[in-house]
């Protein structure tokens, strides 16, 4: 390569680098402006630090390795490490439905909701306007004749605003009712979009208590994250509050919760272990059977048998749901000629069914890796064993299987960890059901820990995120312990660090 070509190439790659880093910086500036506008300092700081890191790493001369690590690292830190740490933290809080805000915002919200018209206050003439970004604004003319827009002096409807037509006033009633313009003695609000009035909160905040100025009831801030009166009445919304070990204590001591949770816990282990065992057994059996020189149609068997692995598993899981349906399904009415077997509706049968479906989904994978591992076993090994007088069973038990387990061992551990959190199969085939009676949260007899977390967090009525996060943390500890044990038994670690 000539020097000229070389320096040309350098110049080209420098230009490429400048362009990419420039693009990152441009996006970052946009992000900084946008986050500044909504005063979200957390995200603001993250963007600032990440961009500074990018600029330093790609222009300093001493950071070669980091240039290749940084992009992946940024994603890893935000969407894997941070969320995990946040999960662990949220497990100690009561975050969830009714407890999403921090305390100052919850207070603000409660006060705003409690606002009532000041008796006898003069009416304002108001118009609701929509700004260029379609946000609503309040144009008001007071009893003194002065016109204001959102509290600031104005002369009329600004050119880029439009008066909200009646139809929209009705359609966006919630937004109109939420409009409030802070004034000196209260705030200006409207109910119908044409008349405004001065409103004041009926609650007064002092010393961490709210006092109702009409009835005199006192609401105290409690550790549950609510303003609560002496007779137990609470003001909504509550706020996010650190509750310590409450979630964990609840999981382990609540009588009605403990039994279902324990059964879910045990079933999760059983499901993962049995899934690995059954899929490996069938995959190995087929690999041993079909991996024979001179067997005709070997290729056809192999390419058809791996089809279940190639089809996306959520699709197959849904197909099986339909096939196993008690009243209309193919298995009962097509194969068994009108049987009425509750494949998915009986606690025990449902467990068998999900294991069967998971066997169908998983055996081709095991078949593939067992075939691969079998073909890697040198022929001399088998030959030597045979000469030493080993029968077929002994050959398999003492030679082939140990050799197979060495090469597939780590994959079996990985498969266990995967099935431990195999949300798709459970959620799509049985939905975790049939439900365990009397459980205070909806838990089913085929629920895994992970699908239980999903139900607690996002299923149905009460979203109990804090409790869900505590459960996630428990799962993490369990999986980490298993993986650590598994990895110690393989030599994966030593080899990785060579």
């Amino acid at each position: 390569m000539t020097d000229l070509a070389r320096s040309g190439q350098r110049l080209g790659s420098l230009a490429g680098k400048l362009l990419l880093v420039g693009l990152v910086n441009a996006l970052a500036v946009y992000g900084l402006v946008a986050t500044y506008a909504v005063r979200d300092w957390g995200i603001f700081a993250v963007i600032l630090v990440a961009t500074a890191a990018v600029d330093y790493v790609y222009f300093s001369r001493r950071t070669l390795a980091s240039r290749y690590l940084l992009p992946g690292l940024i994603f890893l830190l935000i969407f894997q490490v941070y969320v995990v740490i946040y999960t662990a933290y949220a497990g100690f809080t009561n975050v969830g439905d009714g407890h999403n805000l921090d305390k100052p915002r919850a207070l603000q919200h409660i006060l705003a909701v409690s606002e009532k018209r000041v008796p006898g206050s003069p009416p304002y003439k108001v118009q609701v306007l929509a700004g260029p970004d379609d946000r609503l604004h309040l144009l008001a003319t007071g009893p003194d004749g002065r016109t204001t827009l959102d509290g600031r002096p104005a002369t009329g409807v600004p050119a880029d605003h439009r008066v909200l037509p009646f139809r929209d006033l009705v359609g966006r009633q919630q937004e109109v009712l939420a409009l409030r313009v802070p004034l000196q003695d209260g705030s200006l609000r409207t109910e119908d979009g044409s008349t405004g009035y001065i409103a004041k909160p009926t609650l007064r905040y002092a010393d961490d208590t709210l006092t109702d100025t009409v009835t005199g009831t006192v609401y105290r801030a409690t550790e549950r994250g609510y303003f609560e009166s002496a007779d137990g009445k609470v003001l909504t919304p509550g706020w996010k509050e650190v509750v310590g070990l409450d979630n964990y204590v609840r999981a382990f001591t609540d009588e009605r919760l403990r039994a279902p949770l324990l059964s879910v816990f045990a079933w999760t282990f059983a499901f993962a272990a049995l899934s690995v065992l059954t899929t490996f057994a069938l995959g190995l059996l087929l690999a041993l059977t079909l991996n024979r020189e001179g067997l005709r149609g070997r290729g056809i068997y192999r390419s058809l048998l791996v089809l279940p692995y190639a089809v996306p598993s959520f699709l197959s899981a849904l197909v099986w749901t339909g096939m196993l349906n008690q009243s209309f399904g193919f298995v009962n009415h097509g194969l068994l000629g009108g049987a009425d077997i509750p494949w998915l509706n009986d606690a025990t049968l449902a467990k068998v069914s999900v294991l069967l479906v998971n066997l169908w989904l998983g055996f081709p994978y095991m078949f593939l890796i067992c075939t691969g591992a079998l073909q890697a076993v040198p022929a001399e090994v088998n030959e030597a064993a045979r000469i030493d007088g080993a029968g077929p069973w002994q050959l398999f038990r003492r030679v082939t299987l140990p050799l197979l387990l060495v090469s597939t061992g780590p994959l079996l551990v990985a498969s266990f960890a995967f099935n431990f959190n195999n949300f798709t199969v459970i959620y799509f085939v049985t939905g975790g059901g049939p439900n365990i009676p009397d459980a205070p949260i909806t838990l089913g007899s085929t629920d895994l820990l992970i699908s239980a977390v999903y139900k607690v967090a996002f299923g149905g009525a009460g979203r109990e995120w804090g409790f869900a996060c505590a459960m996630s943390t428990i799962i993490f500890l369990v999986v980490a312990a298993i993986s650590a044990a598994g990895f110690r038994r393989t030599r994966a670690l030593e080899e990785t660090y060579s």
Partner: protein
Amino acid sequence: MTRWFRVYGWRHLVGLLALVFALLPIVFVISASLNPRGTLTASVTLFADASLDNYRDLAGIPYGFWFGNTLWIAAATAVATVLLAASGAYAFSRFRFKGRRLGLLGLLLVQMFPQVLAAVAIFLLMAQIKGALPGIGLGTQFGLVLVYLGGAMGVNIFLIKGFFDSIPTELDDAAKVDGASHTRVFFTIILRLGAPVLAVIALLSFIATVNEFMIASIMLQDPQRKTLAVGLYGLISERLSANWGVFSAGALLGAVPSVLLFRFLQRYIVSGLLRGSVKG
């Protein structure tokens, strides 16, 4: 004859039984997708009737959107995952730097915590991001891809590093003597010779993304923005029996890209997995 059976015959018997088990659901779904009556009950009789009505009915639901969304989300995730993980693996394989061992150990630790376990935290984080940057926050597919990329480095980096380690460093050195920069070595030598393992990672990432339901379901609410997994699950959980025909048609079409990709890359998978697992 008996000798033939002892050596080959029983193998065919086992093989055929396995084929019946493996193909039954697939045959069933093909038959159901062609059944014009389109209910679960009617699908019980295999190939009772054949028409393309169900496929036509797919136009009545946002199936096209789901299909397209899934394709681009999975493809973008797969490509970006390969790039991020490969460059990370290159750093660990070819450079010696402070914190290298610690970094590898950290990755091993982090990847044990699957993202689905942090679903709540991801939901809250994306809701917060939506407040400031609506383009990449909750409800956007772009945001979903960003979330998936958080898992890009975890497992994959070990598989890829194991492969890169087996590419002789003499090749790098020779190129460097010729004046190639480390960037050039990465793109022209390492990425090219590492193609087999990168293909496996891309395929596994693609399939995993197509299959991902939990995070996609909490991120995407708008019907036209959903992925196949979220959309088809909604179709089934709404009315299992009545929607069966349409679902079957959609499921069959939805499986095509994954099956095709798999056919092309199948031979790499086994060698890649076994090799990676042994090498760590």
